[in-house]
C-alpha cells in the first residue's frame, strides 16, 4: 500500500460517509454511523492500520489527511444531528401532546375556625407590646369570678352577669375571663402584661348576638406608671390592628366594678356599616382588685380590658349571626382561608 492508495481510500470514505450521513433518518442511526466511521474500531481506524507499511517520511502526511477526513466526517455528523434532533424534538412534542387545560383535581381545602384565629390575631397584635398569652380555668368559684373582682354578694352589679352555677355549691362556669386577672396577679407580681383568652359561659337565651357559650380575651397590664392615656394608646393600636390602620376609636366612660375609671371603647372604620361599634370594655384596675391580687395600689397601677371574640369576628368578617360559629357548617368554615 502506498501513500496515494491510502489517501484515495480515505477520500473515498469521506465522500461515501457524506452520502450516508445525509441519508441517516434518526439520531440513533446517525450515532451508530458516526461510531462505525470514527470509533475505535471504525472505518478510519481500519484504513490507518495500513500505515505501518508506509515509509517513515510518508506517515505524517497520511496523518494530516486522516485528520482532515475525520474532521470533515465529524462536522457532517454534527450538522446532521442538529437537523435530525430538531425534527425529532418536534415529533416528540407532537406525540406527547395532551390537553393540559383540564381543571385539575380539587384542592384539599381545610380551614382554621374564626374564633381561635381571631384570638390569635389579637394575641399577635398584643405581643408586639410585650403581652404574653396565659390561659386559665373555665370552672371557677364565686370568690374569684366575682368577690375578688369587687363584685360582692348581693350587689346589684351582679345583674350584669347571668351565671350558670354548678351543682357543687360555690362553683360556677366563669362568666368572663376577668378572674384570670386575679389569678395572674396572685401567681406573680408586677410588671404584668398578659392576654387571657378563653371560653366563657352565661345564663343567656341564644339569638343572633348572644349565646350561652362564647369567648373573651382579657388583657391586663400592671406596673408603676401605666395611665389612662396608655390604655387609650394601646387599645387604639389594637383597634387599628384588627380593623385596619384607618380605624378610629372613641373612648367614653363605662362601668365595671373591677375598674375605676372605667372605659367603653367604640370603633369605626371605613368598611363599618353602622358608625360607632362598641368593641370592648376597659379601665384602670380598681384599687380593691389590685389589693385582692396582692399588689399595693399605692405603688402600682395598671389597666385591664376585655373584648368579646365572637363580636370582633362578626365585625371583621361581616358575619350577621353569631350562631354560625357553633353551627360549624362546612360551607361556612370553608370561607376562612
Amino acid at each position: 500500500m502506498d501513500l496515494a492508495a491510502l489517501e484515495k481510500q480515505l477520500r473515498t470514505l469521506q465522500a461515501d460517509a457524506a452520502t450516508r450521513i445525509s441519508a441517516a433518518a434518526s439520531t440513533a442511526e446517525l450515532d451508530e454511523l458516526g461510531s462505525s466511521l470514527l470509533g475505535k474500531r471504525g472505518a478510519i481506524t481500519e484504513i490507518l492500520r495500513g500505515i505501518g507499511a508506509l515509509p517513515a517520511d510518508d506517515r505524517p502526511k497520511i496523518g494530516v489527511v486522516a485528520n482532515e477526513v475525520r474532521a470533515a466526517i465529524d462536522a457532517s455528523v454534527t450538522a446532521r444531528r442538529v437537523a435530525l434532533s430538531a425534527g425529532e424534538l418536534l415529533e416528540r412534542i407532537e406525540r406527547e401532546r395532551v390537553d393540559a387545560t383540564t381543571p385539575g383535581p380539587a384542592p384539599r381545602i381545610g380551614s382554621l375556625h374564626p374564633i381561635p384565629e381571631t384570638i390569635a390575631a389579637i394575641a399577635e397584635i398584643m405581643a408586639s407590646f410585650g403581652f404574653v398569652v396565659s390561659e386559665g380555668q373555665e370552672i371557677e368559684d364565686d370568690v374569684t369570678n366575682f368577690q375578688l373582682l369587687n363584685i360582692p354578694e348581693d350587689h346589684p352589679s351582679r345583674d350584669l352577669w347571668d351565671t350558670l352555677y354548678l351543682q357543687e355549691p360555690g362553683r360556677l362556669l366563669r362568666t368572663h375571663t376577668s378572674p384570670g386577672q386575679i389569678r395572674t396577679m396572685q401567681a406573680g407580681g408586677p410588671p404584668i402584661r398578659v392576654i387571657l383568652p378563653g371560653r366563657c359561659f352565661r345564663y343567656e337565651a341564644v339569638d343572633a348576638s348572644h349565646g350561652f357559650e362564647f369567648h373573651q380575651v382579657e388583657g391586663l397590664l400592671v406596673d408603676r406608671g401605666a395611665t389612662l392615656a396608655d390604655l387609650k394608646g394601646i387599645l387604639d393600636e389594637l383597634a387599628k390592628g384588627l380593623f385596619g390602620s384607618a380605624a378610629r376609636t372613641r373612648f367614653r366612660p363605662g362601668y365595671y366594678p373591677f375598674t375605676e375609671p372605667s372605659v367603653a371603647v367604640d370603633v369605626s372604620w371605613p368598611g363599618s356599616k353602622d358608625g360607632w361599634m362598641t368593641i370592648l370594655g376597659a379601665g384602670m384596675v380598681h384599687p380593691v382588685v389590685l389589693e385582692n391580687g396582692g399588689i399595693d395600689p399605692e405603688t402600682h397601677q395598671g389597666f385591664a380590658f376585655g373584648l368579646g371574640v365572637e363580636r370582633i369576628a362578626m365585625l371583621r368578617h361581616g358575619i350577621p349571626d353569631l350562631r354560625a360559629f357553633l353551627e360549624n357548617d362546612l360551607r361556612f368554615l370553608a370561607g376562612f382561608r
Partner: protein
Amino acid sequence: MKIPLSWLREFTDVQLTAEQLADALTLRGLEVRGVERWGANWNKMVVGELLEVAPHPKADRLQLTKVRIGDGPILNIVCGARNIAAGQRIPVALVGAEMPDGRRIERAEKMGIASEGMLCSGQELDATDDGDGILILDSSAPLGTPLVDYLGEDVIDVDVKPNRGDLLSILGLAREVGAITGAPVAYAARPLKEGADAVGAGLALRVADEALAPHVVLRVVDGVKVAASPDRVQMRLKAAGLRSISNVVDATNYIMLELGKPTHAFDRAKVGETVQIRLAKKGESLETLDHEVRSLDATDLVVADERAALALAGVMGGASSEVSTSTSSVIIESAIFAPTSVRRSAQRHSLRSEASHRFERGQERRLATLGADQVAALLTEWAGGVARAGRLVAGAEEVPVTTLNFRPSRVRALLGVALSDDEQVALLSSIGISADPAAVATKIAVTPKRSVSAEKGSARAVRVPSWRSDLEIEADLAEEVARLYGYERIPTSVPSADLPQHRPSPTLLRDRVRRLLADAGLHEVVTHALVSAAQAELWSEPASIVTGPLAASEGSAGGASIVLQNPLSADHDRLRQSLLPSLLDRVDANLRYGATSGAIFEVGRGYGSTKGAPSEWTRLAVAVWGDREQGAPSVGATAWNLDELKRLVAQVAHLVGERPAYGSSVESAVLHPGINAVITGDRIAGLLGELHPASPIWRDEPRILLAEVAIAGLRAGRVETAQISLPPATPPVTRDVALLIPAAATVGQVVAVARSAVSRATNVELFDLFAGTPLAPGERSAGLRFTFQPSATGADDEAIAAELTALEGAVLRACGARIRGVEGQ
C-alpha cells in the same frame, strides 16, 4: 330608664335636640339605648275643632259633627262618644290614617251618613287608658297641626349602670344634663296644704329593725276620690314606659320616676292601728298585688299591721290593702330600706319591680320625707284629697355631709393628663361635688377599707352630694374628673415602663397542630362544651389511656360528669368529658346539610370532677367521613379509612417527635368494638376507630371515623428544640423480616415487641400483611422492614444480626409469632 324630655325640662333648661343630648350623655358615660319620638306612629292625625255636634237622625248612639282642621274643607265625621261639644279641640284621624292597633281609617257610611275620618279617644291613640270618651285637647292646641307635633314627646332611653341608682330618676338625669350644658338644675317641691286632722289620730308606726329600715315616713291623705289620672299625667307615664293604673297609684309612680323614690299607697280602711316594719314570721304568707300567694321567709322584711303582713317591703304591695275605687283614705309609706334585704327578697320570690330595682341600688336618705310629701301633694291635686297634719316618722332623716379627700397629683398620675388642682376641683363642682375649704385633707381612702396619709398640702377635700353614695374612694373621684373633662380629650400614649420576662405562648404547639390539620384538608370547629346527658354517656376516656407525664401536662381525664344547677335546657345541662359527642353532633348536622364527605377537628377541653374537685383537660379530636380528597380523570378519589386516619395521627405525633403505636381495642359506646385501637406513646395517647354501628348517625356509606388524643404540649405549648446529629456518609441499610402471626395476636403487639427488641432500628415499618392460603385460618404473615443507620465504620452487621436473632425469641414469647425469613443487604 326612659326620659321624656319635657319632664327633664321642668328641672333644667335643655336647648339641645334629643339626638344631640343623647350623644352628649353617651360621651359622659350614660349609655343611651335609643332615642324615640313617642307618638311617631300617629300618622295622618291632626288637631281639629268641633264646629257643630248634632244628633244622628237614625241612631241614638251616634252624633254628627262638623270638624275644622285648619284651612282645609270642613269634615263631616260621625262619632259615638258622648263627651263632645262644639268648640272643643280634639284629635282627628284623617281618612287613610293607620291607628296604633293597625286599624285603617276609611271614608265610611254610618247609618246612611258619610263619615270622613274619626275623632280619637286616648285609648285609640294608645296615649291614655280612657276608651269611653274622645281625648279633649287644650283650647290652645294649634288647629291642623299633626298630633305628634302637639302631643308627641322626645324620649331618651338610658341604660343606668348599677352603681348610679341616683340616675333612676328624671331629677338625677337633669343633674347630669346640667353638668353638660352648664344650665342650673332646680327642683321646686310642690307645696303641701295640710288639713286639720292629725296623722297620729288612730294610727301609729313601729319599726322593729332599724338596720333594715333606718328611716320610715308615713302620711295619710283623706277624702281621696280614686279615678283615672289627668290625661297629661297618663300620657307622660306612658311615654316613660309605665302603665296608668289610677290617680293614687299613678301619683306614687310619678314621684318614683321624678325623684327616684318608690313609695307605696295603702287603703287606710284595710289597715289596722299600727303600721309595723318587721321581719316576716315563720309560716306567714302574703298575697302580693300580682295575686300570687307567697310564703314568706323569716328574712323577708314586711310592712304589716297588728294582724298580718300587708306588703313585701320595697318589693311589692299586698292585695288585701290595695287601693280600689272604694278607697277614700290612703296611707303613703315612704321608707329607706336596706338594699341587700330588698334584693334578697326580690330574688327569693323572683319578683323584680321598679321599686326593688331602685331600693337595691340605694336611696338618698332625704327622699323618704320628700317622697311622702310630694305624693301627698299630688293626691290633693289629682284626687281631691286632704293631707292630714304631720307625718309619722321612725328613724333619722339627717345624714352628715360626706367629705372625701383626694390627691390631684394621683389623679394626674392615673389619668396621664396634666390637669391642675384647681381645674380638677372645678370639674367636680359642675356636678355638685363642691370644694370643702374648711376641711383639712389628710386621710386618703385608697380602698373602702384602707386609708393612707397624704403629704401636707397635697390633697384636696370635697363634699360629696347626698345622692352620690357611689363615691367612696379617691379613684372614684379620678373617674369623675376624667368623665367631666372628657375621655376624648385625654391624650394617647404607649406605656414605657418595665416589660415582664418573656414566656413562650401556650398556643405554640396547638397552632402548629391546627395548621398541619388545616393544610391536610381538615376544617377546625368550635363546639359546645355543654352537652346533654345522652351525649355525655357516649364516651368518657378511661384514666388508663393517658397516663404519666402526658396526663400531668395535658390533664387527666375521668371522674364524674359536672352537672349544672340551673341549665338553660336539658340539651346543654352538663360539661362534656370527651369532645367526640360534640364533634359527632356537628358531623350529623353537616351530613344533613349535604356534606357527604368531610373532615373536622377541634382542640378543646374536657371536664370532670373527682371527689368534688373539678379538673379540665385538653384534647385533640378528629372526625372524618367520606372521601379524603376528590379525584380527577387520572387519579381516583381516596376515601378516609383507618390507615389514612393513622397517617394523620402520625403526622401530628411527628410534631412532638413521636411515632405512635397501637394497642388493642377498648370498650366504648362511641367506637365500633371491632374497629378501634388505643394510641400509645410517651408524648401522644388516645384512641381512634370507626363510629359504633349502634349510633343513630351511623350509616353504611359513608363510614365515620373518629380519634381523640392527648399530645404533650397541646395545653401548655412547650415545643422542644430537636437535637440533631449529622448523618454519617454510609447509606442506611434495611432488613425485611417476614413474621407468621397466630390468630390470637395483633399486629400492634408484634410491632411493639419488634420496636423494643430491635432497638438499633431507626424505623420499623409494616410493608406487607397477608392472610389466606397457604396460611392456616386466622394466621397472618406480616412483612416488617427495619431500617438501620450504620456508623461511620460500617461494622454493624453482627450487632444487627444479633438483634434480629433476639427478635425471634421475643415475638415468640410475647405472642407466639415466628420468623419466616429475613432478607436485605
